[in-house]
């Protein structure tokens, strides 16, 4: 007991540093919450008088709204097309997830279970494609999808772009998981006369549920948080995704910080919760993939 107390006492410089870092971390987040509940569109927490005193200035940096109001949230849905943008984001992200997971799990299964000519080349090409810089891909993709196929400002165009960017990571991640599932189960199913498709859909996929879930959540998150490709491919205001819409509030000459803050909270909270749940899988996946690669 006494040892613990003395250790705790020795820890105070550490706590001091940690508290400083916690302050730095939380301040921008509290600022967003403050602006969101301020009921106004200004990015200042408080209006300063011309001859501001120290107390006024302190008020202006304290992350607590002067007047508490939920009007920004209400008017975001009543007056702004934010609900539509959220729905666009949801449709695009969900479609990306379904398509991405389907394509990635079948391919990963083949890469994990079968030995066939072109297997190594295929796996390597997935890895190499991760190195293509996004902008280099965006120019031809823009020409192909918008100018040739006429899929600008459409769900299909953006879903295709997101899916192919997500596939390589998903394939590697799922292949890693399939490799850990013992083959004996499939072999005995094969002896019992099950077909390849039955084995995959009825035995392997259910066993790989955790990997499927993580991959799906990861694809969903990537699509949900993506800004620049959505901004390039979605030109019509009704087709904006949430990120593009949020930037629309505060980009250029528009200064609707209240709407931006309120919208950010709505768009970010679910995805942040998801992320907190996922992060331990992500770290091991990323570092393991990088070590193997």
């Amino acid at each position, binding site marked *: 007991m006494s040892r613990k107390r003395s250790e705790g006492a020795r820890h105070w410089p550490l706590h001091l540093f940690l508290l400083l870092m916690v302050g730095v971390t939380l301040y921008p987040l509290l*600022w967003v919450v403050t602006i969101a509940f301020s009921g106004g569109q200004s990015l200042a*927490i408080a209006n300063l008088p011309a001859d501001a005193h120290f107390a006024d200035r302190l008020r202006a940096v304290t992350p607590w709204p002067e007047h508490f109001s939920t009007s920004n949230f209400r008017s975001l849905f009543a007056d702004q097309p934010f609900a539509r943008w959220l729905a666009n984001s949801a449709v695009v992200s969900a479609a990306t997830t379904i398509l991405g997971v389907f394509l990635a799990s*079948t391919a990963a299964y083949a890469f994990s279970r079968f030995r066939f000519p072109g297997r190594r080349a295929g796996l390597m090409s997935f890895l190499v494609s991760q190195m293509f810089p996004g*902008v280099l*891909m965006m120019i*031809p993709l823009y020409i192909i999808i918008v100018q040739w196929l006429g899929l600008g400002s459409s769900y299909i165009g953006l879903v295709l772009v997101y899916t192919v960017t997500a596939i390589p990571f998903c394939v590697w991640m799922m292949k890693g998981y399939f490799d850990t599932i013992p083959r004996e189960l499939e072999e005995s199913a094969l002896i019992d006369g099950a077909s390849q498709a039955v084995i995959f859909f009825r035995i392997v996929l259910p066993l790989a549920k955790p990997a499927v879930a993580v991959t799906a959540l990861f694809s969903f998150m990537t699509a949900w948080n993506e800004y620049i490709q959505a901004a390039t491919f979605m030109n019509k205001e009704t087709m904006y995704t949430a*990120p593009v819409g949020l930037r629309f509030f505060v980009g250029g000459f528009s200064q609707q910080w209240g709407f931006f803050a309120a919208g950010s909270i709505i768009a970010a909270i679910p995805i942040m919760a998801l992320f907190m749940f996922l992060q331990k899988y992500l770290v091991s996946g990323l570092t393991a993939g990088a070590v193997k690669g």
Partner: protein
Amino acid sequence: MPAPSHRRRFVLGLAVALLLGVGIGLALLTASRTAERRQLAAREALVTLAALTDLIERVETPSADTEAEETADGGGMGLGDELAGLDAGAAPGAAEPGTATRSAVARFAETHPELRFIRVVTFEGIRLEASTDPADTGAKQAPRRLDREEKDLYDLGQRLRAAVDENRETVAAGGAPVSDEISVQEQADGGFVLGAPLERAGTVAGLAQIRTAPNPVVRAPTPPWLPALLAWLAPVALLALLGLAIGERRAVLAGAALLLLLAGLAGYALAARSVREAERRDMTGELAAHVTAERETTGTLLAELGPADAKPLQPESWDRNVYRAPFGLVTAAGTPDAEKLGALIRADTGRLLRSVGALALLAAVLLAFVGFGGAATVGRNLVHHRVAYAYTLPAIIGMILLVFFPFFYGVMLAFTNQNIYNSSKPIVDLWVGVDNFVDILSNVSVVRSTPDGLVFNYNNFYWTLGFNVIWTITNVTIGVSLGLILALILNTKGLAFRALYRVILILPWAVPSYISALVFQGMFHQQFGVINQFRQIVGLDPVAWFDGPLTSFAAVLTTNGWLSFSFMMVVSLGALQSIPADLYEAAKVDGASRWQQFKAITLPSLRPALVPAIILSVIWTFNQFNVIFLVSAGQPAGATEILITQAYKLAFEQYRYGYAAAYSMVIFLILLAYGLFQNRASRATEAIGE
């Protein structure tokens, strides 16, 4: 299993290769004949339009009144003057201008029932001088002032006028014309809307527009089926016969098959050439006949309407390109010019031979592939591993269509000067070789010394590259050291609230980066941003963060530092927690100091997790698009632009697709070089570590 028959393979290979060669050849021939037909339709429409403008320019001789009016009004008329001029023109007693134009248009329309409408616009008074458009009747009867909705029409005229002036200048300066003087719009129904400038006394005074009849896509007449069939089957049959004599000698079979392949394709080329030549003669004759017909009709109209001293028509110049320069294919007599026609036919033949040559190469590769058994192996593999291929196929097709094809297309774009205005032209026409790369890499004037001190060229590639490198190094250093320190602190045994600290400190990684970036952009606002409020509390002046390169750098660095330390912290913490505690116990027993423990146990155990994390974060930071694009946006004047945001702006703000693709290629090569270097470096350190 019997030994595979070389003879059968080569016969099959020849059949497939010839089918491919002749098949693609036929498709190309048909496509180009259809295109030529379309072009002929356009050229005939242009001839009609040229006849119309020639006629109007000759009948509308300025009367004495209008001439006086023109001199009185002078050049730069305001709108009021124009209206006054219009009133004066409409005043009783004065000969109304445009009457001759109207009657010419009316008569021209009568003799050309195939035209949907003719419209003539005069710039002076912004008037619709004449129109046979069914919409322009009743209240909208010409002549009248143009509506607001018809601004496009007026603008089109002004654009053509500007093009004519511009081309005159460039030609006078010894250059080639650059801007289209005739507008050609192909309609959905296959007809054309053509607009050409109307000149009066050497200057463009108006616009004549015609809409030709719907012209369903012309199909080229039947392709030369019989020669093609012969070119395909005859060599195959011959090889089958020869094979009986040759037997299974592979080299001889290959040689014979190749010769027969070339012979077959040559036979096809001869047939295609004669078809092409006959077609070219036909089309030229058709064009000449059209010019002659127009000359007769328009000549009659001119004799009927025009003044006695009218300049004769110039039908030899009617067949013209978009710069209004005659092709010269039809002589004044209305017959094809033999020399020009010969040159055209030679050019056709050259093109044909080039494409057949390329096809021969392709077909030879296919022949070798089938003949030497490659196809059989691939086929066997496909059948044998069909389940595996079926599983991977969807993903592979997606990747090929939307990743690898775009990548190679992007690489090709890098060698062109494609931009938003010429992106409909074929890529071959825009080829500029390595010009883009030379332009990006050869400009090394980053710094210029002036009397006011050094001036930096922020848009220079090397400035951006240098900034990008500094940006990456500082960020990764800050992220790694902060993350590592926090991880070491959080790994302290017995520290209170560890879990709570951990959850809070992970938050920046969880927030979507575009939101963090926009939030920091707001917090760095000069007037209302909280950062400047903090500065004022401690008595400092507010800073215009994005007006100077250093302060702007500080702003983006803060933002990225905030959103990147969590990742490193989590990675390091995970690695720290996986170090078995007995290692430290053993070290303590051996009497190792804390520092020695850190050096001998902690750091080496961190390495396997930290090295890949650092590699990843170097690449992420190097390409950290959102922070730069959304926080500083490259302010001031592009000083804080990184390579990838610069490439984006080149492509999607300046629309220089080719140049931007070259720029991105350079980025790709830099990253590739880094990856290779990193790979070797980490292998080398591993070797030392062991």
